[in-house]
């Protein structure tokens, strides 16, 4: 196989298949959307049949699930959790609040657009999205991973200055360790 920029080697295809079929999810229950995660994982909708299972710590996780609005305080914790995850890593923005603020768009203590602060791979629309929609979002993410297009972590590395600038606008007391990947 020719290894130019456009084509992908067989090993990439195998690795991407494995990444797609085994998603360890760190469900960060920031907002009300977290209530939709238990039915997604348990017997009614059973996300584990697609290889989606919960991870206990950021170190073990592949997908960070931002379930709803992010308060300015919890943004800092989410960033730390995200930076502790190992590459390649993906973010799913869950619910309207991560897209444009949703019903909290003029609130003084929530952020409106999540992708100003963190690279989002897939958005799931809805207030709040039902488990079917959540699984559809995961299926979208799996398609992107298989095509090699879920590159949020690369965007974060390449545009770290941009994200840091926006993050520091919200987080005034910035006492965080450096991001080392």
């Amino acid at each position, binding site marked *: 196989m020719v290894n130019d920029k456009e084509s992908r080697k067989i090993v990439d295809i*195998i*690795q991407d*298949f*494995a*990444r797609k*079929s*085994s998603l360890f999810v760190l469900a960060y229950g920031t907002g009300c959307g977290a209530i939709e995660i238990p039915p997604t994982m*348990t*017997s009614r909708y*059973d996300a*584990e*049949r*697609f*290889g989606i*299972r*919960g991870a*206990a*710590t*950021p*170190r*073990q*996780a*592949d997908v960070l699930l931002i379930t709803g609005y992010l308060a300015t305080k919890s943004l800092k914790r989410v960033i730390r959790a995200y930076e*502790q*995850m*190992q*590459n*390649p890593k993906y973010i799913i923005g869950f619910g309207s609040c991560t897209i444009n603020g949703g019903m909290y768009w003029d609130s003084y203590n929530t952020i409106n657009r999540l992708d100003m602060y963190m690279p989002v791979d897939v958005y799931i629309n809805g207030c709040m999205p039902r488990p079917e929609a959540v699984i559809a979002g995961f299926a979208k993410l799996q398609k992107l991973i298989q095509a090699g297009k879920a590159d949020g972590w690369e965007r974060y590395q390449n545009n770290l200055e941009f994200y840091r600038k926006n993050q520091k606008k919200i987080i005034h007391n910035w006492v965080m360790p450096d991001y*080392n*990947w």
Partner: protein
Amino acid sequence: MDIGRFLLTSITTTALAFVVGMFYAGFRRKITARVQNRVGPPVYQNFIDVVKLWSKKSNITHGVMQHLAPLWQIATSITTLMFIPILVDSTFFVNLTFKGDLIFLLYLMVVGSLGMALGAGEGGNPNSAIGVTRGLTQMIGFEIPWVMALVALMIQHQTTTIVGLMDVQQASGTWLMFSSPFAFLAALLAMPGMFRYSPFDIVGAPAELASGPISEFGGKYLGTLMTNGSIFAFVKLVLYVDIFMGGATNLVLLVVKTFVLYMFPVLWGLVSPRFRTEQSVRFFWGWPLFFGLLGILQAAFL
């Protein structure tokens, strides 16, 4: 045995342990799912997980000991595997048996956990430290009935090798689980603690301890730990089958016997809530210890 043949057979043995152990873990996930009225992941899901973990592009450690801890564990598991006869009188599989290897195995089987304790301590995560403390405390719990069961067998049959115990079963025609039932019960009740399945999964409880000792291990380190888990599960099952169920003469029989034995901790775990550390130690020092004592009395006086 020349070195080339030894390398070939040891790699084959390890690969067999890995594949069988991985499929057992997959079946466990599938059975868990079916019991909970779910469809569950495919049985080969654990292979995909390991490939995924090994194809992570960044792997963080907090120091040399944490880097070495998964290697330490997997080295211990493979070494233990080399001392266990896979099949009865097999000329192919590696078996470095020597006089007293049962006592040696008792020590060797806990070395991996000690290496893991050092590695987890270096991560600096408080969950790891708590998990290690609980794990070592629980180990004191289940090691005592397990050692008593083995001591009972050693006294009764005047041998300290696994091959010796297998020969006893070959000669008499009955499995030791029937001729020494108390020792078998003690060892069997200690088994879920050894596997750390529910109800003895307080060590790595994901909801309370953020998976305990392995909480700082990601990427290829977690992949190595999963590989080690499957190999070590196979090691323990084959050891039990060798000692109590007369070993196996071919691979199919081995897989059947180990799978039946493996269902005991799995199915018990499915219907059990989680014990606290002191509750699990109290459990192990109750009936399993009593059965171990009965086993020693039976060996010494009957």
